[in-house]
């Protein structure tokens, strides 16, 4: 009798812990796996108080075609509801999102809503690389036309691998950005531009859109403050200990990087700058190139992330 009472208590506790569901199961998490639409890339745009969310399911996999959708709403949740209505499958599945793309205007208006969405959503993770589209929208990149090779997830995967391998930039995650914003009020974010492959990338298939890495965006107080170009990005990488094996051209103090006497030397290996290198790099790169002390237009004085 005592055993059966224990059994009944365990069963009752399990039911309470699981929540309720109307899908034919007492556990609310029931999902038919074949009805899931896996999403791999999410894009966010904001303009005039409206939010546009773009999604891409990644390259086509056998009988499963690639799905690209975009929907607008007053909030991210409302836009996702519209996407859910328009999706051919029953449930959009965000647990395997690999990349987050944010349009320039959305970045200027602030990343708080995006960070909040990824923080609160039970499916998504915060450790996702994030890219800001310089001079464009996330929608045009995420829903770009193209075949499987020039699908946005493949493109961003290639951009991430190449930039980190070459050390030209570092793909910061949402978690990195949230932590740095909370700690110092400023953060860096990798930027890309959408490029028509016929013009800017002649070797690629014509008529498609690809992404080119262009440096860093500096975020202050959760908003986009200003951009760092390629050379400034390399300086920032040196200061942050993220420099790779790419060669950098540094001024020798007599005329800038184009002077015949300019020093061309390999960047130090990854890790914090030590010894005489750090003050030398700070003296020549920080004030001159990074502009940390230069307050951008319409913003508060810059703080180093």
């Amino acid at each position, binding site marked *: 009798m005592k055993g059966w009472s224990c059994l009944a208590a365990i069963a009752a506790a399990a039911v309470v812990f699981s929540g309720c569901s109307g899908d034919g199961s007492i556990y609310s998490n029931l999902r038919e*796996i074949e009805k899931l639409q896996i999403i791999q890339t999410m894009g966010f745009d904001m303009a005039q108080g409206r939010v546009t969310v773009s999604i891409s399911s990644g390259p086509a996999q056998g009988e499963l075609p690639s799905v690209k959708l975009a929907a607008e709403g007053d909030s991210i949740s409302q836009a996702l509801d519209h996407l859910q209505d328009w999706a051919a499958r029953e449930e959009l599945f965000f647990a*395997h999102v690999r990349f987050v793309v944010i349009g320039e205007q959305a970045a200027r208006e602030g990343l708080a809503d995006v960070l909040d969405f990824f923080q609160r959503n039970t499916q998504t993770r915060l450790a996702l690389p994030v890219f800001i589209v310089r001079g464009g929208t996330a929608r045009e990149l995420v829903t770009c036309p193209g075949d499987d090779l020039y699908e946005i997830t493949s493109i961003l995967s290639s951009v991430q691998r190449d930039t980190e391998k070459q050390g030209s930039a570092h793909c910061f995650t949402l978690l990195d950005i949230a932590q740095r914003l909370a700690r110092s009020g400023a953060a860096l974010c990798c930027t890309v531009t959408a490029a028509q492959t016929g013009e800017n990338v002649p070797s690629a298939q014509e008529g498609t859109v690809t992404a080119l890495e262009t440096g860093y965006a500096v975020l202050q107080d959760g908003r986009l403050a200003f951009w760092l170009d390629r050379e400034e990005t390399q300086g920032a990488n040196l200061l942050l200990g993220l420099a790779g094996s790419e060669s950098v051209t540094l001024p020798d103090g007599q005329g800038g990087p184009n002077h015949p006497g300019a020093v061309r030397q390999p960047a130090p290996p990854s890790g914090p700058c030590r010894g005489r290198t750090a003050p030398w790099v700070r003296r020549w790169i920080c004030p001159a190139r990074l502009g940390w002390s230069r307050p951008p237009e319409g913003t508060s004085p810059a703080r180093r992330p």
Partner: protein
Amino acid sequence: MLHVPEDRARHALVASSLVLLRWLSLALSLILPALFVAVAMFHPEMIPYRLLQSIIRSKQEVPFSIAAEILGMLAAFELLQEAGIRLPDPVGQTVSIIGALIVGQSAVEARVISPIAVIVVALAGIAGYTQPSQELGAAIRLWRFLLALCSLALGLYGMMAGLMLLLWRLCDMESLGVAYMYPACDGERGSLLRVLFRPPLRLEKKPRRKGGRNP
């Protein structure tokens, strides 16, 4: 339960590896179908992307849910096993080959069941054959069904609740006045290691039987 007399004739390392393999087989046989039902139906975020895509592709035209597939395949496996045992040897082998290979392959090609369900049930069944004790093997066959049903009801919570129930039952049982979990529960140093491994014979001590009863 998982030691066999031949272990004492083997080198300690070989015998210990085989005992560990039997423990792994026991776990696979017991929880693999239930784990698959729980993860695929309730927690698909735990499945890596490429595997999830592969499962979704294979499930596209299958009319049954994952739980129905697994429970149906488990029942079909038991049916084949029982038919193979009861029939004379040559006929039994033929039934097994026709049932397992031809019917299974045809069912997958006809999209009645998905390949991953066949793999899960076949792995669990094969792992169950490694048990030295027939009684333990029969109990595992029953608990496999029960745990799959628990997973169907409550996902991983249900599976863990079922496993706790099983553990509670095992710890509560006695056989001829000796605890069923003996010597793992006698509180002596090294008892658990002796259960999981086969120590070298020179280090082996004769186990004392005085504390065998449940408290």
